[in-house]
């Protein structure tokens, strides 16, 4: 939560580790799921919810809150775990992840309430809604920022580029898109599916400020998000290069959209994370 104070690197790192352990436990209950993406984005989520985003845990509908839209709506293990650690969700509810009847669905939906600003499982739609929110926020002269996390595979959706062009036309500097760049999609390496590179040059040519960072480097996050907030005449995109499975050496770099996570592997991963940071 943005307080004006700088969260320590240790706290951000420790929080990310805690989130990673939650992700392993949540996915392990089902034996398969979005574990690699969750581990890969854990540092970004730690930074977003423990440093960047402005919200009020006592009033989730606070009109001046920063908005965060998870356009990669399937990457929910890390999202729910982060919400729980940030005091926005009862930690106990994480055990209900993906169970029948639970509002903690695989794809985040508004059944969870205002924490989900927009239901995005159908890829390509989140940016347009974020753009509408950014326009609305600016018309109301709010100083809130609108954040969106997008997957790299999602760049194959044409609507993303409609929205990118429109956001630049309207100079929506209160809009920051984070691209979780891991080149991983269902069919394999995203670069084999479509020529998505160079993402930065493409978005720059569409009128965006772009910053490429290591998605596991908190110092780089401090600098890039500050640059995004300081920008006054165009939307910003932070292209965060992430490693699937980050934090658990024997999972790092394994690209699997919906990976099988046997009990033994999960136990080993948890032991590693405990040992490393316990």
């Amino acid at each position, binding site marked *: 939560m943005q307080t004006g104070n700088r969260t320590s690197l240790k706290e951000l790192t420790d929080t990310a580790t805690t989130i990673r352990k939650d992700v392993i436990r949540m996915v392990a209950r089902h034996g398969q799921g979005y574990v690699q993406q969750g581990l890969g984005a854990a540092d970004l989520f730690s930074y977003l919810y423990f440093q960047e985003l402005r919200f009020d845990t006592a009033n989730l509908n606070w009109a001046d809150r920063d908005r965060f839209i998870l356009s990669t709506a399937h990457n929910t293990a890390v999202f729910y775990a982060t919400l729980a650690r940030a005091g926005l969700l009862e930690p106990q509810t994480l055990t209900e992840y993906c169970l029948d009847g639970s509002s903690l669905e695989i794809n985040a939906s508004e059944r969870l309430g205002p924490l989900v600003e927009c239901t995005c499982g159908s890829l390509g739609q989140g940016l347009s809604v*974020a753009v*509408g929110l950014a326009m609305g926020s600016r018309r109301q002269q709010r100083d809130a920022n609108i954040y969106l996390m997008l997957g790299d595979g999602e760049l194959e959706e044409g609507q993303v580029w409609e929205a990118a062009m429109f956001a630049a036309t309207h100079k929506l500097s209160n809009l920051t898109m984070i691209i979780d760049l891991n080149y991983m999609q269902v069919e394999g390496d995203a670069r084999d599916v479509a020529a998505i590179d160079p993402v930065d040059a493409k978005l720059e040519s569409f009128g965006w400020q772009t910053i490429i960072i290591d998605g596991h480097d908190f110092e780089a996050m401090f600098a890039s998000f500050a640059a995004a907030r300081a920008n006054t005449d165009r939307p910003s995109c932070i292209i965060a290069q992430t490693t699937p499975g980050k934090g658990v050496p024997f999972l790092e770099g394994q690209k699997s959209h919906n990976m099988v996570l046997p009990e033994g592997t999960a136990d080993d991963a948890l032991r590693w994370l405990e040992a490393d940071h316990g």
Partner: protein
Amino acid sequence: MAESDNSPLKSDALHLDDFSVRQQPHQQIVPKYYGEALLAAARADTSILALTADLTAPTETDLVRDHLPDQFVMAGIAEANMVGVGAGLARAGFIPFVHSFSVFLSRRSFDQIAMQIAYPKTNVKLVGFMPGIDSLLGVSHQAIDDIALMRALPNMTILEPASPADYQDAVAAALAHEGPVYLRLYRATAPATPVDGVPPLQAGKIRHLHHGNDAAIFATGLMVEQALLAAEDLKAQSVNASVIDCASIKPLDVEGILEVISQSKIIVTAENHTIIGGLGSAIAEIMAGNNIARPFFRIGVQDCFAEGGSRAFLFGKYGLSAKDIAAAVKQGLAS
């Protein structure tokens, strides 16, 4: 921003740039019934915004653009994005009216409408022009399935006024309902006169425009005029038909419809739309669900694609004319 101008309608407000009709020399000046209704509403409520996808004049949003430019958003030729932006603006507290031709709004943006408007019940008003086969522009521009698509979406209200004289009431009804509304409109080609003696259009209510017990014709949009012509023609042949304006396609006035059906021997539905999934299907569902059997005819596009042409030509060729309605009634009485 203050209004730029309170002057009377300028020459560009005339009806000169549409492709729904061929231009005639010395054409009458026709008011922009929808554009004026939206402008009046937007003047009264600054949270109302007009979004359009490069179709400003054909959706009559030029009036908002020219008089309340701060409440106008040009979305460019990108309907899917426009729908998402509208949903985002609604989430921020605005009331976006999102405009295009009916065919593009419904077909190109269906998933976006489903997920960003219908599911979350965002307060977005979708306004589609050039409905059905009423277009010179051909099959790409003819929305023959938009009612079926929109009807299938939970939380969606669908209003298709019979006459531009009803557009002000339709805008009011759309605003009175906090949530998704699809307005299916055509542009006036002649000055429109309100029907006397009937209540104003409202969601969830039918309007009985013509009375008769031999047959009931349930019609919507442009087909109401054809139904009234058919009823006059039938009356001359001593056949008395009711004409029911079903502007509120969803929610339907089930009680009102059942009462009319209980007093009628023949049931005919008439819509400028495919006979699959639209008004005819909705009435059939009501009849079947209430164990009512009557001779039943659906006037509309008979499960085919059409072509560009004038309204009279297309309605004649594809079976949507007053003559087709009257023939269906007579066929029912003869059976």
